[in-house]
């Protein structure tokens, strides 16, 4: 899978860093860069299950292209959402469905890609892909 330029440079930036503490710090900073879903728009319907944090995501099409907005009370989760935005926003929904979540691994972030009920990142990513699928079908 070839990543969009913006994601590529984020991956490069992260993978240059050796210390996981620093990497988390960077992610913490990315948290502010997410296409934010304001707290007022958080609802049970857009809540991501299986996160330890309270995390929400909203997805829509603009001119047939996919866009997500996200918000979470944990900054690192929100940082991962910001990175995910780089991966998915502005793409065809059909592309979004096919994206592998491996970019977090490439960034050296131990988000752990194990399918498990409590894997926040993976649950978030799957939710985004499900929404993309729904949007595609609805078109």
């Amino acid at each position, binding site marked *: 899978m070839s990543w969009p330029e913006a994601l590529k440079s984020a991956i490069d930036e992260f993978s240059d860093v050796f210390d996981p503490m620093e990497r988390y710090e960077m992610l913490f900073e990315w948290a502010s860069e997410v296409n934010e879903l304001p707290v007022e728009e958080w609802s049970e319907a857009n809540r991501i299950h299986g996160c*330890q944090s309270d995390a929400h995501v909203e997805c829509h099409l603009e001119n047939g292209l996919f866009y997500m907005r996200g918000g979470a009370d944990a900054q690192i989760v929100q940082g991962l959402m910001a990175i995910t935005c780089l991966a998915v926003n502005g793409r065809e929904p059909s592309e979004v469905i096919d994206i592998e979540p491996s970019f977090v691994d490439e960034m050296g972030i*131990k988000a*752990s*890609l*194990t*399918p*498990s*009920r*409590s*894997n926040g990142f993976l649950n978030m990513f799957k939710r985004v892909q499900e929404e993309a699928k729904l949007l595609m079908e609805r078109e």
Partner: protein
Amino acid sequence: MPLDVDAIRSDFPILSRKVSGGKDLVYLDNAATTQKPQSVIDAMTSYYEQSNANVHRAVHTLAAEATEMYENARNTLADWFGTTRDNLIFTSGTTEAINLVAWGWARSNLKSGDAVIITEMEHHADIVPWQLLAEEKGIEIRVIPINTEKDILDMDIFEASLPGAKLVCVVHTSNVLGVANPIPEIINMAKDAGSKVLIDAAQAAPHHRLNFSNLGADFVAISGHKMCGPTGIGCLLATSECIEQMEPFMSGGDMIETVTMEKSTFASGPQKFEAGTPKIAEAIGFAAAAEYLSKLDMDEVHHHIRGLAKLTAEKIKSVQGITVYGDHSVDEGSGVVSFLHDSIHAEDLARFMDAGGFAMRTGHHCAQPLLDAYGVSSTNRVSFYLYNTEDEANAFVDHLRYVVEKFGG
């Protein structure tokens, strides 16, 4: 390509053990439990030495590693059994898997007057839970007898018993006779009659590559320790439909969604039935066993094991005073051969064989009704597995002949 049994043997450390005054161990009690290859032992050791942590709901490195190993084990096993992770519930073995069907599914989905079919060939694990449920719920149990001439289930009675049956419970391969039942036919007939089907695959899974999706059963119960895996683990394969129909059985941590003092709500899928800290190392070891088997040609494995049983049955039949139970002329079936001598007590015979280095089992094999049908209370039983050799089978026959000559008079 036939199995490279020498190479296989070198994977199992216990096979170099000496017993009974320096004799080579000839392990022929595989239907009770199989030995473990180094890779299975190592998988567990390495988990404990490198990654041990409780799984789920923690973000630290070890917990993430342990969770990944545990959940990957589920993937590996689901894959091996031809199903998905959402259809595999970890249990402590076949017994708990069947109990889970009885307590978790049957108890809430069957009502007084409904019929459950079991067979005379069943292991106690597939009899007693149904008797307890029948007593509690007023469920009718219909028993399919075995035709002891032909060593097969009476399929006419089975057919006649189907109307009104809600669940058919049948052992895939008998742990006493080594006989395989006509499972596809049984499943088709049961499905046509609108019944669910539970297959006890404790003896079949070790030398068949079961494919849950193709099989068409609703439930399949499996033990890890009988297929190169560790003790304390097994699984229930169940269709999504049935999993959704199941009520919680064991309850506690990890199987809930929310808990308040007033009311709890439950997780969905397999997790709903996996309360408490999971059998983490065991799941990892079980998956390592599936990985070990996946490197072999399972048709060859079956052929090899069954071949040893056929050979042995054929040879000991001609030993004076020996009666062999079960039909060993057919290719289907397992590595099990049950027999008795007409004057040497089964336990004495087992001790004499042990004195020669041969590990075999004696007793009712947790299948008293089946033995009753044959009019005996115990049998001697040898059971072969993938690491046994033709030389071992022949040595067994020779030692048996010697014992019979000496004490069978």
